[in-house]
């Protein structure tokens, strides 16, 4: 409840004073606004001397409310609140009148701008009169982090946090960590071997004493709030006991189901039903693919427990572990709970594989039309061809290869409107890898633009063209059709204006990076926002690039949007550092802008009538039910209560409450009323 308000009008150099008569604004405030006991103007309020002025005047004049008439509160509200706090005043008695963005910069006529400024200052002094002291909400912090996704983003983030001494839980839904990066052959722009740099990190993670790894596991639910998340993890039935198994490989060697398409090899290679996805997998222990294992199929069909089926027990029999075998057919999904203080989402991306969208390219129809990731597997020494570039149909080494860029990307009509950002670079890399392996082969690249903004990126792509001799054609491919063993690529060269027809042996589509199929559902599970393409949204594109819309949940890697490895690793590090900051203390302070349901003395207790509309509209599940009890323990009434840990301060509940029994601190009814009331329109 303020009574002595100081008004500080900022010139902002001449940004404000050029079109607003700042002296008049201050004078009017002093003359007319109730509660205003001190006014002044200053050249730059946000400068050190400006802040000092504010601090000094708070003390000298005994101010208990401050209005700074300056720029947008988004710029310096924080600054002035901090300064006031230093001067011993509760920072929530500071309000900002936005003279710069709302007046001086948009209303060049000085009298007009001045008059509006006077109004804006009056609105804020009236609001300030109703400001209440608020204290930051202290929330205890579980000093442990959860990293969802074990790709390079997750690995980097987890290691950074673990190295700093905090426990990390990592959850990966595939049998092994590694993600897409483990699938890559070499990486641009240095052409170093992806696995060579990836594997040591994976091993480090697996061996890190601060990291607990859940592979073949998924997030079941996330409850709680920043500092205090309750996580439920579904450990999918692996059918292999991770503690007992040594990863000796005998089981998968004997498995009779050998023709299962390998996901890791992008279906270019095969795997068994009990398998590790790739040799360097972490953990290097197998999982039984229950869809394809014949024993499991039999058990399902007959509706019996797997262990009761005797169709095939080769893996079990081959297991050298004794007396209890490491294979357990009857294993079921298990739900485990973890408590963490912060979450990093690093769930990655998915390559566009909806080939039907690009029927004219024959993807899916023609074996030799493959995607970028498939090419990576072909080029990888650990891949199905052990690094030989052979076309999938007949194993022939392609003499002419065509790369098509922007398949799916930058194509709002068919695919995604955005640029996948990595394709220009990886296509250039692919041409090089190809040329290195097939010296006399010829690579053609159809492109729309070449976007190689990045350190050494432009040089890299020029090298592909100039040194490695790839032929770059600017234009779209209209159709690919089969002519004998060849694939005829019909395209346009828009630079020469001619139609191009290439008889190729193989075609590689630089497919778009898309959000994971279940990104939307996943985001809802975590109450975080996502954009129209289902990529998870950061809270501010520039200033808060790794924070999600839910406090305490951070984003790393391609789940937030297409990125290459360096960018992913950088973001992962950034997210890790945010988490570290959060975990650095036992308690954290939160903005006290939260809702509150009124409480009154008996016999009223609360004017809340318990209709729980607020609970229904709350996006964060922050409204709880509280029983008001009589002395004898009987319930007098059940009313709403806000969990301040979960509340994010949107005010939906307050506007929904018919009896106005809920209000939002910082924007309470008295404050809003005062603002409306102060817009004196007479």
């Amino acid at each position: 409840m303020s009574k002595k308000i100081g008004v500080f009008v900022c010139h902002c150099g001449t940004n404000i004073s050029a079109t607003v008569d700042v002296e008049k604004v201050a004078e009017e405030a002093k003359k007319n606004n109730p509660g205003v006991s001190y006014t002044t103007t200053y050249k730059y309020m946000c400068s050190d001397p400006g802040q000092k002025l504010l601090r000094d005047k708070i003390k000298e004049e005994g101010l208990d409310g401050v209005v700074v008439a300056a720029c947008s509160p988004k710029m310096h509200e924080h600054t002035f609140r901090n300064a006031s706090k230093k001067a011993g005043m509760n920072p929530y008695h500071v309000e900002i009148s936005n003279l710069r963005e709302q007046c001086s910069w948009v209303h060049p006529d000085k009298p007009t701008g001045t008059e509006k400024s006077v109004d804006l200052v009056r609105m804020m002094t009236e609001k300030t009169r109703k400001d209440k002291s608020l204290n930051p909400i202290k929330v205890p912090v579980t000093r442990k982090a959860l990293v969802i996704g074990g790709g390079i983003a997750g690995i980097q983030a987890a290691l950074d946090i673990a190295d700093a001494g905090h426990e990390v839980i990592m959850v990966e839904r595939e049998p092994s960590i590694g993600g897409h990066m483990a699938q890559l052959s070499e990486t641009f722009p240095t052409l170093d071997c992806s696995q060579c740099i990836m594997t040591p990190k994976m091993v480090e993670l697996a061996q890190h004493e601060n990291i607990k790894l859940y592979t073949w596991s998924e997030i079941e639910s996330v409850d709680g709030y920043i500092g205090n998340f309750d996580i439920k993890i579904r450990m999918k039935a692996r059918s292999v006991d991770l503690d007992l198994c040594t990863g000796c490989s005998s089981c998968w060697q004997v498995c009779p189901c050998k023709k299962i398409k390998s996901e890791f090899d992008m279906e270019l290679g095969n795997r068994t039903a009990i398998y590790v996805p790739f040799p360097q997998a972490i953990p290097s222990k197998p999982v039984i693919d229950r869809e394809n294992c014949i024993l499991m199929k039999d058990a399902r069909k007959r509706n019996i427990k797997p262990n009761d089926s005797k169709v095939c027990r080769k893996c079990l029999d081959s297991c050298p572990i004794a007396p209890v075998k490491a294979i357990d057919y009857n294993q079921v999904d298990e739900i485990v709970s973890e408590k963490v203080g912060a979450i990093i989402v690093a769930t990655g991306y998915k390559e566009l594989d909806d080939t039907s969208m690009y029927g004219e390219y024959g993807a899916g129809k023609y074996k030799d039309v493959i995607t970028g990731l498939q090419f990576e597997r072909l080029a990888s020494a650990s891949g199905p061809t052990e690094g030989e570039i052979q076309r999938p149909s007949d194993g022939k080494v392609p003499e002419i290869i065509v790369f098509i860029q922007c398949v799916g990307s930058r194509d709002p009509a068919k695919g995604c409107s955005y640029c996948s950002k990595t394709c220009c670079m990886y296509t250039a890399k692919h041409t090089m890898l190809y040329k290195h392996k097939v010296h006399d082969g010829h690579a053609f690249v159809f492109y729309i633009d070449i976007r190689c903004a990045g350190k050494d990126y432009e040089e890299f792509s020029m090298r592909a063209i100039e040194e490695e001799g790839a032929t770059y054609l600017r234009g779209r491919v209209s159709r690919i059709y089969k002519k004998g063993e060849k694939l005829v690529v019909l395209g346009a060269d828009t630079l020469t204006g001619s139609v191009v027809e290439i008889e190729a042996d193989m075609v590689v589509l630089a497919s778009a990076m898309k959000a994971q199929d279940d990104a939307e559902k996943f985001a809802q599970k975590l109450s975080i926002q996502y954009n129209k393409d289902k990529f998870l949204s950061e809270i501010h594109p520039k200033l808060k690039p790794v924070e999600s819309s839910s406090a305490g949940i951070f984003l790393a890697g391609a789940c937030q949007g297409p990125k290459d490895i360096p960018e992913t690793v950088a973001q992962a590090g950034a997210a890790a550092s945010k988490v570290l900051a959060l975990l650095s203390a036992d308690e954290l302070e939160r903005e006290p802008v939260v809702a509150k349901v009124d409480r009154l003395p008996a016999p009223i207790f609360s004017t809340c009538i318990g209709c729980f509309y607020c609970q229904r509209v709350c996006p964060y599940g922050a409204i709880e039910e509280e029983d008001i009890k009589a002395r004898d323990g009987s319930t007098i009434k059940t009313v709403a209560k806000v969990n301040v840990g979960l509340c994010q301060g949107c005010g939906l509940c307050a506007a929904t409450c018919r009896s106005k029994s809920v209000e939002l601190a910082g924007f309470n009814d008295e404050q809003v009323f005062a603002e409306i009331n102060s817009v004196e329109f007479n």
Partner: protein
Amino acid sequence: MIEELRKKAEELLKNDTVKVVFGYGEGSVPERTRPVFITKPEDVNKLTWNKYCVYNLTTYLKRQETRKLGKPAIIVKGCDARTIIVLLKECQIKREDVYILGVTCDGVGDPLATKCESCDVHTPRIYDDLVGEKKENKEVPFEERYAELDEYEKLGEKEKWEFWQKQFSKCIKCYACSNMCPLCFCDRCIVEKNQPQWIDSSAHARGNLSWNVTRAYHLAGRCINCEECQRVCPVDIPLNLLNKKLAKEAEKNFDYRPGYSVDDELAMSTYKEEDSQEFFK
């Protein structure tokens, strides 16, 4: 039917299923009935049933004085039963705390109440026991249900304003409308709150407009069209027109009618991504 009602009530009281029966009794004049609260089996003869049983007795579920009487059996017509559904959904009553004695109904009031003209709940949609022959609840087309609004919607802006100002100017702020409404159950109505005073308590033009608009808005997506507000208004303001208008908008925009199912989502506490936004720029 009266006999059946009395018999049921007697039974319920005798076997201690309920402590009190909320029903209709003889009124002060033949063309009125009044709420009665029967607590003794020997008093069931005070119950009556006729075309003047317009009251929506569910309003007594919110009143402290009648709540004190113990678990009630409440006599409800089809329209009143819709209130029960809303009250259940809005956590104001627990199903097990109320015994619903449904009555089938061909319409009440003399002349027939407007609400009965487009009735599609001759048989209550929720009850523990039913008195009277079960009647078909025939769907009434949207246009017909809201036909009453046509002549007012057709008015020009100025005519509308003048019509409502004339109506609101009569308002004496006696709050019979909200006190009678079974869904106006707040302990402390917004108009009784003065920090800040969003709605002026004075019965002048300004205060009357904000009160009447807010009262209606607070029933958006909730009002079940029992018309009690309008019936009890001592100065005869056609309040139900406002409620009906809102019900129409809720149904048109959200495809929602309150009090038909206990399982649906309340219109004003949910949303659909594809909700209409034609007037948004």
